[in-house]
């Protein structure tokens, strides 16, 4: 049984994993790039080792260096977090070879779910509904795809077989435009994943993205921890998640949950994983893909079930049985997570970098913040712009929204721009409050100008604030000039020298 875990990640998720280890009395080893010497995961871990320069491919993606650190530190387990090496079958296989416990599923499960075409084929065999599209195909030519497309029907999506994060994805409205789009999708997939294979999927309109958290131990026990509603996205990047989904009732939850469990069983799954579904307007649901790792948005499930998912991952990896049966999982209240990104919502969500000079976290009842940053920390352009996750719990969805609004209002981050104003505007949106949204909502039916009422009522206050600050600054600079004048007259020579060297 392992007693020292190497956390092969950075940022908030590395901190999250270190916390779980510490609470179980397990020692932790952090790895860091040159840009992350002062990162929180380095400060909190028991041990920390430099693994290379700032760019990920020279540090956090360098499996060889990570294994070196494991050897040097005596770490006998690795938690990959999410991203980086988390879904790399070869990495998990190499761990087994080196007799290091990989805290996650078996390499074969990662492989089976990592290739989208194979994953579809696998779950179809298990009788699980998938979005209609090309089946059982490894390498279809453009001609094959153009032949099949009309049978699937338009609009449809071209998706990269090795895909993720919207890369190599194209929406096709008609057969005419398809050849061009196929070419560009393949090009993008090739450059992003080194694999230009694509497949076709029917485009579900008005779809919701709803996913189920599952946990499986090595004794064949598999349970689900309910769903997460993740339809609030922008360019296929999730921005806000909530649990439960206001779109599901108990019956549908049970049905989808048991299918999620079945999907995991189909690949002999162990540890934590997530089954993503698309749900159409008529509540038909389709298997989309499985994420074979800890998910960014796992905390909302923790809030409504009381299960510490990361602690449970560690227990499972230590060869223990699940601490819960399906019957013991109870859902209590409602949780929402806002991803706080260093990007400017008033300027096309442009990423923002810089040093955080001041930060005030929202705290108090029902509020949790998972973050890897702190005042004095520098946000660099090398990594993901997500700098914190703000999670709230409320007895009802309404209470959770009001609490989130309160927490967003309290949250201050100075030094980089953040998307907090986006979330504030979203919390005030009637459609969001009413639960009326799909995965296109943010891009197509939402605008930062929606909050026009509160805008005009506060314009006068904004004018006063800016004027007071401008006035204060011009007073200050006037004083500075006056002081220098005096210096020059008394200490002519010195004053000049001082200015010269300022």
């Amino acid at each position, binding site marked *: 049984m392992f007693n020292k875990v190497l956390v092969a990640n950075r940022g908030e998720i590395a901190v999250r994993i270190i916390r779980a280890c510490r609470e179980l009395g397990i020692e932790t080893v952090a790895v860091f790039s040159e840009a992350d010497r002062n990162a929180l995961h380095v400060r909190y871990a028991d041990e920390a080792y430099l693994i290379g320069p700032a760019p990920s491919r020279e540090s956090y993606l360098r499996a060889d260096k990570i294994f070196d650190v494991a050897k040097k530190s005596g770490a006998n387990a690795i938690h990959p977090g999410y991203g980086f090496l988390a879904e790399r079958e070869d990495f998990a296989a190499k761990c087994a070879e080196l007799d290091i416990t990989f805290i996650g599923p078996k390499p074969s499960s990662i492989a089976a779910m990592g290739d989208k075409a194979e994953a579809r084929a696998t779950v179809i065999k298990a009788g699980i509904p998938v979005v209609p599209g090309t089946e059982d195909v490894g390498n279809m030519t453009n001609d094959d795809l153009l032949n099949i497309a009309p049978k699937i029907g338009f609009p449809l999506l071209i998706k990269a077989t090795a895909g993720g994060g919207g890369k190599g994805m194209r929406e096709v409205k008609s057969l005419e435009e398809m050849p061009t789009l196929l070419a560009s999708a393949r090009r993008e997939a090739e450059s992003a994943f080194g694999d230009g294979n694509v497949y076709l999927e029917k485009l579900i309109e008005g779809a919701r993205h709803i996913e189920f958290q599952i946990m499986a131990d090595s004794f064949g026990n598999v349970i689900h921890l309910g769903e997460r509603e993740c339809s609030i996205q922008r360019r296929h990047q999730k921005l806000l998640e909530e649990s439960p989904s206001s779109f599901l009732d108990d019956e549908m939850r049970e049905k989808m949950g048991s299918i999620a469990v079945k999907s995991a069983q189909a690949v002999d799954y162990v540890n934590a994983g997530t089954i993503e579904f698309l749900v159409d307007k008529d509540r038909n649901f389709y298997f989309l893909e499985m994420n074979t790792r800890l998910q960014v948005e796992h905390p909302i499930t923790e809030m409504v079930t009381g299960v510490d998912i990361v602690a449970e991952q560690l227990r499972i990896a230590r060869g223990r049985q699940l601490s819960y049966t399906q019957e013991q999982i109870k859902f209590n209240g409602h949780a929402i997570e806002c991803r706080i990104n260093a990007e400017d919502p008033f300027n096309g969500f442009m990423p923002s970098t810089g040093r955080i000079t001041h930060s005030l976290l929202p705290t108090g009842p029902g509020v949790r913040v998972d973050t890897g940053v702190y005042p004095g920390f520098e946000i660099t352009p090398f990594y993901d712009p997500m700098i914190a996750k703000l999670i709230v719990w409320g007895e009802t969805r309404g209470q959770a929204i009001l609490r989130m609004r309160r927490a*967003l209002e309290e949250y201050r981050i*100075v030094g980089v721009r953040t998307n*907090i104003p986006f979330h504030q505007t979203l919390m005030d949106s009637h459609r969001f409050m009413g639960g009326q949204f799909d995965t296109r909502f943010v891009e197509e039916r939402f605008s930062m100008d929606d909050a026009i009422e509160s805008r*005009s009522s506060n*314009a*006068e206050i*904004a*004018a006063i604030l*800016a004027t007071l600050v401008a006035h204060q600054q011009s007073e200050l600079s006037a004083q500075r000039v006056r002081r220098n004048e005096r210096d020059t007259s008394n200490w002519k020579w010195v004053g000049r020298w001082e200015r010269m060297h300022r």
Partner: protein
Amino acid sequence: MKYITTIDDKEFEIEIVDEHHIRIGDRLLQVNFEAVSGQPVFSLILDGKSYESYVYQGEEDWEVLLRGQQYQVKIEDEREKRLRAAAGGGVMEGGEFHLKAPMPGLVVAVLVEEGQAVKKGQVMLILESMKMQNELKAPRDGSMGRVRVKAGESVEQKQTLLSLH
């Protein structure tokens, strides 16, 4: 001191009466105004109402982030206003615009060519940074001047990417 402060095309006349009072239009208001822990975060108590805001100087105007809204604020004192009135109030148009990289990154695509006419809001270039693709748009109508980068090139922050006439 009197200021003419403009937000969203609306003008406010704000007079700083003394340390604790301002006059806006014909209303005299009590102010209690403090910077919070040496940051550009300001706490304002205005006739008892408590506000907190992030105020800083942008490229041209002041920027105010207040209750989830961002305001571009133009502030002129009386002297500046008079000068501008004397100049005829004409706002300068045209001139060359240089698109600079807002952050270090990788140029994924350049969507315009030299000499090409572009519309305001048209995407000119895609820059990848922090794992995100960012569209850089034309701030106004114009014709493309020199294009200094090409797809696949890494650029530094503030590096000039292309120019717009």
